[in-house]
């Protein structure tokens, strides 16, 4: 008999589901890819067959053009049977629109690959579901006890207060174009902000896609071509890379804000020249990571990417079996 879980192999560029010859979030083009969510480091183009939620497939189509080769949409809660009899069920991960944990069942063993996830409420996607399993393959982007994301309402209040205090300026919020931007907009709406929210060009299509999937984002307008004066006291959303770019010179004296879990650490905010750090992340913080492992209570915990050392130490302290997988290519400097 094969040793437990030997059908799932961590390879440098992804997790390989051997009996199905399928890869999870592979870092290069493969024949069959099971994709957890649409962020570029997890969803690369050019696979023969892409198995993902319909929302993720739509995001990939928007980013990479039409997926000409095969795609298999799997709705939340739905199970598909892959080659070799491996069953894959897509379960909400609460990370971004369409994000899923993938539950794999084979030879009586259950493995969950989380992709990226969070436990906080997010108006743009369904919440993470705790699902029992034998092996829990978790991310650890914010796997250090210093990372504790504050309630998002506090961060929205900071943002709205900065806008009010800095008359004659505008607030420019750097946010990941997929997920973070839409969440910030939806949370601003939830906080009662009704004014137009202005968008960098790179944000527009993804926001429309979210709206097409039933996420109400209110009045959005592109910044392009709008005179400076019309943007005073505005809130503008752009990708983090545009914050200190020449692009931002067109704006009226922007207060530079950034929505990211890294903003918890002052030097990280300083290094990016951020005046208004907003600690908002679509990843689980330390408490969520440890709480999730406790709730799922697997036989083994595998840590894919991030600060895995500290999470492994925590598993050791709580007498849980755990190991780090040396996977390459997952980066989340901006989240």
């Amino acid at each position: 008999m094969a040793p437990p879980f030997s059908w799932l192999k961590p390879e440098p560029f992804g997790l390989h589901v051997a009996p199905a010859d399928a890869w999870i979030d592979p870092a290069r083009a493969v024949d069959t890819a099971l994709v957890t969510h649409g962020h570029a480091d997890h969803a690369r183009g050019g696979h023969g067959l892409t198995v993902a939620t319909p929302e993720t497939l739509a995001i990939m189509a928007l980013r990479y053009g039409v997926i000409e080769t095969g795609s298999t949409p799997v709705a939340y809660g739905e199970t598909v049977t892959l080659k070799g009899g491996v069953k894959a069920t897509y379960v909400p991960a609460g990370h971004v629109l369409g994000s899923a944990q993938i539950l794999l069942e084979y030879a009586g063993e259950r493995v969950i690959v989380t992709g990226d996830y969070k436990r906080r409420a997010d108006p743009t996607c369904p919440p993470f579901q705790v699902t029992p399993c034998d092996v829990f393959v978790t991310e650890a982007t914010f796997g250090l006890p210093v990372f504790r994301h504050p309630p998002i309402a506090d961060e929205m209040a900071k943002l709205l207060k900065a806008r009010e205090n800095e008359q004659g300026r505008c607030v420019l919020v750097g946010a990941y174009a997929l997920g973070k931007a839409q969440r910030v907009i939806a949370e601003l709406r939830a906080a009662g902000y009704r004014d137009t929210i202005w968008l960098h060009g790179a944000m527009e299509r993804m926001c429309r896609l979210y709206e097409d999937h039933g996420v109400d984002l209110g009045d959005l307008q592109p910044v392009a071509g709008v005179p400076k004066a019309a943007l005073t006291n505005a809130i503008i959303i752009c990708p983090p890379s545009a914050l200190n770019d020449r692009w931002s010179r067109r704006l009226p004296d922007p207060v530079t804000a950034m929505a990211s879990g890294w903003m918890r650490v002052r030097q990280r905010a300083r290094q990016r020249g951020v005046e208004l750090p907003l600690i908002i992340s679509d990843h689980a913080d330390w408490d969520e990571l440890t709480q999730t492992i406790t709730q799922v209570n697997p036989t083994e915990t595998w840590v894919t990417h991030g600060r895995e050392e500290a999470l492994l130490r925590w598993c050791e302290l709580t007498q849980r079996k755990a190991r780090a997988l040396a996977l390459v290519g997952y980066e989340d400097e901006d989240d």
Partner: protein
Amino acid sequence: MNRFAALLDALVLTPSRNAKLALLADYLRETPDPDRGWALAALTDGLDFPAVKASLIRSLMAERVDPVLWTLSREYVGDTAETASLLWPEPLGQRMPAPTVAEVVATLHTTTRTTAPAILADLLDRLDVNGRYALLKLATGAMRIGISARLAKVAFAQAFSVSVEDVEEYWHGQSPPYTPLFDWAANGAAPPRTDLLPLFRPFMLAHPLEAETLDLSEYAAEWKWDGIRVQIVHVAGETRVYSRSGDDISATFPEVTAALTTPCVLDGELLVRGAHQGGETGGAASFNALQQRLGRKTVSKAMLAESPAFVRLYDLLIEDREDLREWAWEQRRARLEALVPRLDPSRFDLSQVIPAKNFEDLAEIRSRARDEAIEGVMLKRRDSPYVAGRRTGLWYKWKRDPLLIDCVLMYAQRGSGKRSSFYSDFTFGCWNGDPDAGAELLPVGKAYFGFTDEELKFLDRHVRQHTVGKFGPVRETDKSLVFEVAFDSVHTSKRHKSGVAMRFPRISRIRTDKPAHEADRLDALKALIAD
């Protein structure tokens, strides 16, 4: 404490000097006494609690956090106080109200090594994450957020619409929480009395002489000696020697301190005996010889015998409690000349007026001056009062070659080879305008030689202790250290943000005696362009 924590956070994240000034000024205006005074002291490194050190923070955390998780976190965050503020376990239930800054200071002042752990833990429990950061920074006295005493004084002046010179003068006799200072500035009370204390008075400074020629019937000329500018104050039996930046260096030069027993305030150049400048008799050693004596808290007998210090006097600000600063230079000079013969001749002499008939004659005398270390000549308007700072048209310095400019250290990078562990590549900048009016430093060049091994050690230590940011291999410093940079020529350059490129820049000396805001401006460098 929450207001102070918010101020600290905003200061950390605000790069522009103007915005920092505005934040500080708002805080000083809006915060009641004595909190604002204690905060001011904390920001300018004026507070010290011997019972609270970084090791106390580490031991408090060791009781609460697994050591491996602490080390991983500390390595990632890069700052002990910040790591502890983030990892401190939130107390269960309702938090006790946050302490005021004054309460924190009073509490910490009464702690001993035995009581400190419990007291600090209790304070930490009463604060949120930003408050804890501010508390730990205040308690360990390591702010490192780029707020110099000078910037704090400018902010104070701005907050209450008073002059920076007055703030400088009255500040010196005060200790935290500076209540009389706030009473004067904010509430219109009489200024604190300064005539009975051995206080520092702000220096009068000179402009570089550009192309103008001056009429020597209006201006007197003196040699510009290559030592350090000092002010010696004697009042009520006490003597203090102050450096250019207003630091008390009495202990560094005890022979000078002990020698003045006449009540007065003198301005002059501190030098070490030698034959390097000014001839064999009554001559002075080079600046390097003097440098051996700088920065020491105690001085050995051997050093006193080997390199005795003296002061070449050139001005008299106050004599016998009579303030002469409003008087014309000529009148002050007459009083000084009458006073010098009554002083200890081994420690004090008079800076001679150069007997030039006219400006051309002076230029001729200046060009003949062969003494290596004479920096050039000073020109002082005969009717000028003694005013703080640099006022146009009153005093000029006419430096000699090579081209020299005072720059501020901005960034440092480690060298390679035998210097691989040292920060030895230095990027320095000049002000793009008046630093007190919000000008910024612009990098103007890079130098990696010109210093001795001893100086390199000093520079390396300075960089490590004054780092405010890290960008890969590059460290950003708090921009407090002034270099005199010597260079062959300077040219316009489109590739550099400053618009200039220096040729062959080297660090000719380290000016620990000079505050950063007195470094040269970009215009001074541009005036030297020889395209």
